[in-house]
């Protein structure tokens, strides 16, 4: 089945130690998104890629970076995780034909910062 896959499902890192979360998709969608969702809060868009074009949200901290080496894969890099970065990180994809396109979400990676 076509899907969005996130690895790992759970990630534990130490304060200040760089961490990378990965997302892959078999839907061949040209838009990929990263969201941060803290407990009992709304998913918050960090950035998205439209093909190779990177689009950062204005309030996304510089600590968060992303890479998209090809259509199928997208990575979220947290350069120096702080305790406040503990959250669920959601990857999503969509086609870019119109604004009406549905987003397809992965299961998320829960990040714990010690």
């Amino acid at each position, binding site marked *: 089945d076509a899907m*969005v896959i996130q690895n790992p499902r759970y990630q534990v890192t130490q304060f200040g130690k760089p961490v990378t979360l990965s997302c892959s998709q078999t839907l061949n969608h040209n*838009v990929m*998104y990263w969201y941060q969702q803290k407990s*009992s*809060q*709304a*998913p*918050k*868009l960090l950035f*998205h890629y*439209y093909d190779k074009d990177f*689009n950062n*949200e204005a309030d996304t901290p510089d600590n968060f970076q992303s890479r998209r080496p090809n259509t199928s894969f997208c990575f979220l890099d947290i350069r120096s995780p702080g305790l406040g970065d503990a959250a669920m990180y*959601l990857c*999503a994809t*969509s086609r*870019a034909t119109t*604004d*009406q396109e*549905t*987003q*397809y*979400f*992965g*299961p*998320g990676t829960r990040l714990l910062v010690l």
Partner: protein
Amino acid sequence: AQSVSQHNHHVILSEAASLELGCNYSYGGTVNLFWYVQYPGQHLQLLLKYFSGDPLVKGIKGFEAEFIKSKFSFNLRKPSVQWSDTAEYFCALRAGGFKTIFGAGTRLFVKA
């Protein structure tokens, strides 16, 4: 500023009860509105969406939502809930381009 408000954070219903989850938004442009659902242990998935035309939108599993422009609302309804509807429900607004703004979610628990 664009925003989405979901008024109920937790809702508990018995099976066969009717459901209405409130969603209000703040946005000055043309709206694209969504309801997503997350069942326990599963990923977020689309329940229904509104872009234009008939303000009453029907989705999967018997859910529907009504867009009321004058009230800036997009409430989700189901006439008779089932135990399997236990999930978290998110209202979302497409705020131009690729940015989607989500509400904080409503956790629904249906008692068997």
